[in-house]
């Protein structure tokens, strides 16, 4: 395999660039994203109570997302590398700002209002900021990472994650942490570290349970095992979503025909629990179609990452791909009762502008990585 790469090294001279490369677009990924977004809009139309209004709003966010993606794709990797520390630092400062001046909504301090800007959650920034920072950090260091680099990387992860968990927003905290940890993993972290980390995590679980987790979070975990114990309370969401999914069967009840979702038994049907609407109305075959699209997107992203010529691109690209998968897995797992309920939207399908923009920034970076390759292979 190694000899293949040698042949692709820049010494082979200038190669004519295709139109896609000039536009910094990876056509398969672009097409898959378009299909998934379209599918998402189709489901959202049925899931949202105001149908067209929500769908149009979401569509315009997607349009904006695609534009952002194309712009991001034009930014070169060296620029990203340079920006990374500033991006990360800014995000971190904003998180500190949240901790001290953030707005309290629903018992958590997550939002920050800066005059002249729309209200936003700085923790969302970190979903991009952290992998960017770590990829940049490891780019200029030896791979696999040495002990002190690992410690540094862990600190870079722990600081923002700690602030986010403190908000409290365990779900986003875990996702941000995941986006950092996958960079470490991809950088070739030794198995010794990985096993130690796994062992520590299992040892820490009881400590987390008793000292770190809030009551409502413990409740969500307990509900996983016995949702019937609090049918109308904490168990409601999971009972109703499983009922929706299960009653969909293979064929589904038909678009806009889901009784669970259309009669409001299903909570959060247009946001975090939208997969239950899809499952109920479009059936198992609809789920398979969505999973296939997701799988193809991830496969393409991993391919791009693998083909990247620089450490930075590889780490960033694979981190974005794996994080994308983590979102999918956590969301679909939670709605179907495999995982505790955490606030994670289903990528490209759940309603929500910020999530789309953040995802598209990630895909933009991947497009950039893809088109900076010296030779196109597709």
């Amino acid at each position, binding site marked *: 395999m190694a000899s293949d790469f040698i042949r692709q090294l820049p010494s082979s001279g200038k190669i004519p660039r295709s139109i896609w490369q000039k536009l910094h677009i990876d056509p398969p990924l672009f097409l898959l994203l378009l299909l998934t977004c379209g599918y998402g809009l189709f489901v959202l139309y049925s899931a949202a109570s105001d149908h067209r209004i929500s769908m149009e709003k979401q569509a315009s966010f997607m349009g904006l997302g695609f534009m952002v993606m194309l712009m991001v794709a034009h930014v070169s990797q060296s620029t990203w590398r340079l920006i990374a520390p500033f991006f990360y630092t800014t995000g971190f400062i904003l998180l500190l700002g949240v901790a001290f001046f953030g707005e309290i909504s629903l018992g958590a301090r997550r939002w920050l209002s800066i005059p002249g800007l729309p209200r936003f959650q700085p923790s969302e920034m970190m979903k991009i900021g952290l992998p960017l920072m770590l990829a940049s950090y490891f780019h200029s260091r030896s791979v696999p990472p040495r002990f002190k680099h690992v410690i540094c990387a862990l600190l870079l992860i722990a600081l923002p994650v700690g602030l986010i968990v403190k908000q409290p927003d365990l779900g986003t905290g875990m996702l941000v942490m995941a986006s950092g940890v996958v960079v470490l993993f*991809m950088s070739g972290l030794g198995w010794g570290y990985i096993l130690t980390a796994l062992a520590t995590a299992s040892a820490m679980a009881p400590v987390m349970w008793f000292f770190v987790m809030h009551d409502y979070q413990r409740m969500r975990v307990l509900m996983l095992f016995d949702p019937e114990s609090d049918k109308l309370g904490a168990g409601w969401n999971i009972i109703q979503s*499983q009922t929706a999914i299960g009653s969909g069967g293979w064929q589904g009840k038909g678009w806009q025909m889901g009784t669970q979702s259309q009669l409001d038994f299903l909570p959060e049907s247009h946001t975090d629990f939208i997969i239950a609407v899809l499952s109920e109305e479009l059936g198992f075959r609809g789920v398979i179609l969505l999973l296939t699209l997701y799988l193809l997107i991830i496969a393409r992203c991993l391919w791009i990452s693998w083909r990247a010529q620089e450490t930075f691109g590889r780490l960033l690209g694979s981190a974005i791909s794996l994080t994308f998968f983590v979102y999918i897995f956590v969301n679909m797992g939670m709605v*179907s009762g495999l995982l505790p309920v955490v606030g994670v939207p289903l990528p490209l399908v759940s309603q929500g502008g910020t999530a789309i923009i953040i995802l598209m920034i990630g895909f933009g970076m991947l497009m950039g990585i893809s088109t900076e390759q010296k030779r196109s292979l597709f």
Partner: protein
Amino acid sequence: MEFRPYNNAQGQNIFFKDQDSERRLFTGRILIGTAIIGLLFLLLLGRYYNLQIIQHDHFTTQADANRIHTMAIAPARGVIQDREGTVLAQSKPSFTLEIIKERVHDIDYTLRELQSILDLDDSEITRFRERLKRRERPYEGVPLRDNLDDEQIARIAVNRYRLPGVEIIAELVRDYPMKELFAHSIGYVGRINEKELNQLAVDDKLKNYSGVFSIGKTGIERYYEEELLGIPGAQNVETDVHGRILRTLDRKDPVRGKTLTLFLDVKMQQAAVDALAGRRGAVVAIDLDSGGVVTAVSNPSFDPNLFVTGINSHDYGALRDSPDTPLMNRMIQGTYPPGSTIKPLVALAGLENGFITPDYQIFDPGYFQLPGQEHKYRDWKKGGHGGGIDVHLAIAQSCDVFFYQLATRMGIDRIHDFLDPFNLGRTTGVDLTGEKSGVLPSRLWKQKTFKQMWYPGDTVNAGIGQGYHLATPLQLATATGILAKRGIRIRPHLVKAIDGKELLPEFDTPIILNNPKNWDVVISGMHEVAQGERGTANKVFKDAPYTVAGKTGTAQVVGIAQNEKYDVSKLTDRQRDHGLFIAFAPVESPKVAVAVLVENGNSGSGAAAPVARKVLDAYLLNRMPPPAATLPESATTPGEAEE
């Protein structure tokens, strides 16, 4: 391994790395990552396969159970009407304003607005807020005001757009348009309480009550509960999570309760109430062909409408604790000493058992003494009735001494055994609940009740219906009816027809005398009472256009000491004697029997007989052609009235 120089995209030489090993390392990690992703994707797929394919049926059932609800549709309770078809009890829609808090944006604003729209007072708001706290589930409506009138409904409708969560609920509520007039006979319905609910569960009748919140508590409403209830219907509806009904999937209509037609009628009832003129008492009239109770008054009365949606404790306390006991149905629950009204039956017992004959006479010195005893049992008439008192005159003038003597000669057990089939001391079997049996005393009864032996003096008192003897006005009316019909015993009842189908009268074993002429002896004595010149009530009936047989009675409320005289002025209102009167008419072909009781009315002739006259007039004058008067020969000289 060798180190190669590496240029980045911009051609900057940063530093050397082992490109190959890094490539291999990264490729390895990508493969591992891909494998993990693949496995987890399979896990997700498996989970959804499990839910959607394997457990599909289970969840389909669960989803249907979520959205499809069976709702009971309450049947309309049967109408109760009088003989003429006037509605006495009906179910009519009542509109209640409810608030569903989950749909209200700002509860304080909504309450403020409603307060000005409906003129609610602060106590209603306070009560609403308390009820709101006690809700059992979300989306449960909490009533704010019931019995909305059309104008209020219209005003709410106009403002509805700015009052989300405010709903007007129509419910069928029992209505008694005649209010106090029939309260005791018809009774009332009320909310089913826990005890009744448990009883329904025991009887396996709960399904008959789905959607029904009221049950008959007293009177006909209770006795005919099953007929009045009807059969609840049901519908399957699709609802959303908030319980809002989106569509009806199927429906089974309820069957309305049966219509009860009573023997009572408004005119007679009103006539009796008017005749009582606010005095405490009871009036019963029984149609003798059917046994139908045509008048059933117990005074004072109450408004049964108060009980329908739940009476407040203040109102209920006032009714319950009133010394006038308006809640008691005196007709079947008030037990009084029958006094002299018992005399015709005692006389009949004496005739039938051969202790007296129609010609038998006594001398009445004004008192009676048991052999070897000092105690004087006094006649109500000071100085006595004198000589030549036969049974006819003894009844007509209510001679106490005649009956003291007769009772003593007969002994209590003969009296008891003879009077028992006249429904004294036992319930009449009328179609009402809570009927009392009264007391027809005997040796056995006294031994059982008081563990005491029977004294000869007890028999003396029993002879004139005093002492232990107690009877309800209904018992007196039935006994009078049996006497009038010469032994035919028809069970009294209030309901004439169910859904237009007439009920057949129920008969008990008739009383057959060895000498049927004895009936005539007693009846002619009673005729003398009402319309003869020596009768105690002839003032009242002498001008009646029909023949009447009656008997006055005075029941002592307080005992009078041996040497005292009954002096009205010395007694408080409630210590005065009860006035009683029994009668039937016409004498030749008896159509109706009446019993009147006026509590503390002092005398039967003065207080009770005029009431009976009005009732008989009301009943007979409308029904009979002016009789070919067999009026007693010129009843000009008024007889001496009982005191």
